[in-house]
């Protein structure tokens, strides 16, 4: 067999050098004049054999995607055990977040729970206080549903103004996953809720012993006790072996490593629903129990981490939208900072309390852009501007910032997080 790899490599390297020196746009021209080396030259993968079927028992992304990952903002928290990182929204498309890219928020690190030693207890105002093993849980009828989980603090760093350059950092405390689990209602009915049982306390098995109070009406409505995400077991970072799914409501309530459900006649007012996750308004008063996530959207491409690199001409704008109150039938997009808007094209499944994908294709003339997206949800709610939100809530709120995001794109296609008049 003749080895072509030696005479192939120099020209390929020369091509890469040439492209790097004169910008990506050159590639097209060069291919037209001389023929594209990507076609004319053989690539190693055209000739040599790849790895066999068992090389990766659990598959991983292509090495060319090695840059894709969750990232944190080190200055946000004292250290990484009680901290948060962010989903790389600008690297994703469609509506499903891959399990390994779902943002993490832990209060005492990731609990590595042995499912054989895990129990779920129901106690309090019930007819029978019960204990379930994971095996017991698997014997209930299951449901499959796709829901977004958004941290109430998503975009919280942007309350006072544009801070972080990248939709991963401004909007990445969200993921959208198909859950398999048991209706919380079924579990509670197994124990029998007493008539005075109006509230539920969900508790995690981690060292933070995470607790949240949930009104019984919601608990009996659409909550799931889930053990699978996107078809496979929950990841440890997402509460393996079992977590609560509270559709449309703030992520902190979706207790991970769920071990106990207590029925009571009043809320518990624990740390995460008093000291945290309450919305301090401008007058010093604070809203509590702000559970529902308001409709929100963001353009994921282009964005500061994903500039336009192809030059002017045909350009695809895309992004995601969601609402804790229903579906997203419509998203508007502007490229001139909100003087004129167009309706974006929705694509993919439109599911209740799930992420939606939108696109807007246009012919970019290479001039500066001010990009925004504006979500409309199925209740008629229209995503407000940041200034509209501030007018109601003041500057100290941190949580539930669903204001319209603006990206400034310069004539080179470089994007920046800005606010506009």
């Amino acid at each position, binding site marked *: 067999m003749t080895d072509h790899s030696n005479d192939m490599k120099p020209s390929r390297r020369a091509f890469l050098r040439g492209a790097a020196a004169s910008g990506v746009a050159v590639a097209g021209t060069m291919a037209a004049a001389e023929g594209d080396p990507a076609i004319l030259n053989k690539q190693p993968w055209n000739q040599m054999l790849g790895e066999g079927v068992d090389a990766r028992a659990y598959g991983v992304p292509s090495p060319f995607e090695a840059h894709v990952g969750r990232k944190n903002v080190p200055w946000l928290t004292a250290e990484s055990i009680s901290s948060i990182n962010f989903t790389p929204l600008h690297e994703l498309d469609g509506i499903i977040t891959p399990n390994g890219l779902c943002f993490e928020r832990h209060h005492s690190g990731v609990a590595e729970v042995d499912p054989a030693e895990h129990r779920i207890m129901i106690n309090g105002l019930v007819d029978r206080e019960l204990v379930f093993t994971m095996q017991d849980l698997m014997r209930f009828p299951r449901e499959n549903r796709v829901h977004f989980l958004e941290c109430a603090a998503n975009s919280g760093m942007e309350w006072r103004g544009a801070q972080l350059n990248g939709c991963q950092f401004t909007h990445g405390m969200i993921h959208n996953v198909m859950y398999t689990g048991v209706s919380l209602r079924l579990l509670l009915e197994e124990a029998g809720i007493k008539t005075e049982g109006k509230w539920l306390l969900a508790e995690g098995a981690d060292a933070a012993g995470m607790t949240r109070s949930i009104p019984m009406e919601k608990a009996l409505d659409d909550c799931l006790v889930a053990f699978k995400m996107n078809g496979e077991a929950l990841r440890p970072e997402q509460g393996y072996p079992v977590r609560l799914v509270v559709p449309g409501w703030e992520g902190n309530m979706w207790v991970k490593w769920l071990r106990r459900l207590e029925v009571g006649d009043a809320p518990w007012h624990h740390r995460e629903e008093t000291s945290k996750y309450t919305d*301090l308004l401008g007058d010093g008063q604070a809203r509590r129990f702000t559970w529902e996530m308001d409709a929100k959207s963001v353009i994921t491409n282009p964005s500061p981490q994903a500039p336009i690199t192809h030059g002017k001409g045909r350009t695809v704008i895309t992004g995601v939208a969601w609402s804790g109150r229903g579906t997203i039938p419509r998203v508007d997009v502007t490229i001139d900072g909100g003087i004129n808007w167009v309706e974006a094209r929705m694509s993919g499944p439109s599911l209740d309390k799930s992420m939606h994908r939108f696109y807007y294709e246009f012919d970019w003339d290479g001039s500066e852009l*001010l990009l925004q997206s504006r979500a409309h949800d199925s209740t008629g709610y229209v995503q407000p501007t940041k200034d509209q939100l501030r007018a109601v809530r003041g500057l100290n709120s941190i949580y539930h910032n669903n204001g319209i995001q603006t990206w400034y794109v310069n004539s080179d296609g470089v994007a920046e997080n800005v606010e506009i008049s």
Partner: protein
Amino acid sequence: MSKFLKLLASAAIVTGAPAFAEGLGRVALPEEVAAWNTDIRPDGQGLPVGSGDAIVGEEIWTEKCAVCHGDFAEGVDRWPVLAGGDGTLASSNPVKTIGSYWPYLSTVYDYINRAMPFGNAGSLEPDEVYALTAYLLYSNDLIEDDFVLSNETFGDIVMPNVDNFFMDDRAETELPIFAAEACMTNCKDSVEVTKRAAVIDVTPEGGGTGIDLESGGGSETVAPAATEAAPADEPAAVEEAALNMELVAQGEKDFRQCKSCHQVGDGAKNRTGPVLNGVVERTAGTVDGFRYSNDMVDAGAAGLVWTEVELAAFLANPKDYMSGTKMSFRGVRDEEEIAGLIEYLKSFPE
């Protein structure tokens, strides 16, 4: 199929799963419920019998809490501030502490009992939790130091900010405003850029200020910029010739997780953890001015020296290595990562 059977079949479809004679799970034993059901409510439901005061509380605080929250609950580094902040909630710099913000005292007891001390949750006896809760009240000027907090006196305490919380009212205050017809054409005359992230420049790879998820305080300190890992092909300085610079670079990167508590290099100071300059081959527990655990001081007195071997064992699982250590850190699993960290630390001689 008979009409009756058809009816039955359609009924089964409507109601879904058939009814089963036997339930799933088993009845929880009283001692099992008692073991997990430790939650406390504002009305006092769940409080165990016990008592403590701020004087006893201060001793426990100094030993177990001050390392992160400070001697006076003022917060160290970016750990939560738990005292002060009175009258700041409507200001441009609200400081949300137990005294200034938390509506109920029961939340303090419940949270300490379930989640503190950080890294050793659930280790405190009821009397200790009462004493620490009393100390936090005292730190916030809400009781005198001789007040004995107990399950009997708990209800006497009313937190100052309790009346400043109200139920979510977005349905009345926001939804009507945010449901107006959206303008589509010629919506404004001109557009100006009013704020730019590039001016603040706090995106990771830089340092910065901002709103904090964990700390109770609103006043932020500028975190030091994360230094870039030294390029592997940079010629090593003469005194570092023995170091594996590739490992040092890797260790520098991994040291980011240690930086929240430890400083190293020129001008490093003791923070939550001691200064690490010269730690390799140093006797344990001997950095001037750092308040070590008794176990660490004793180990040093007994001759423990941080050789690379000892340091590697400690870093792999600090609590296993020395149960009394103040270092609330889960440990490093990857041996190569440990080797990198040690190589990096070796690059900072005393």
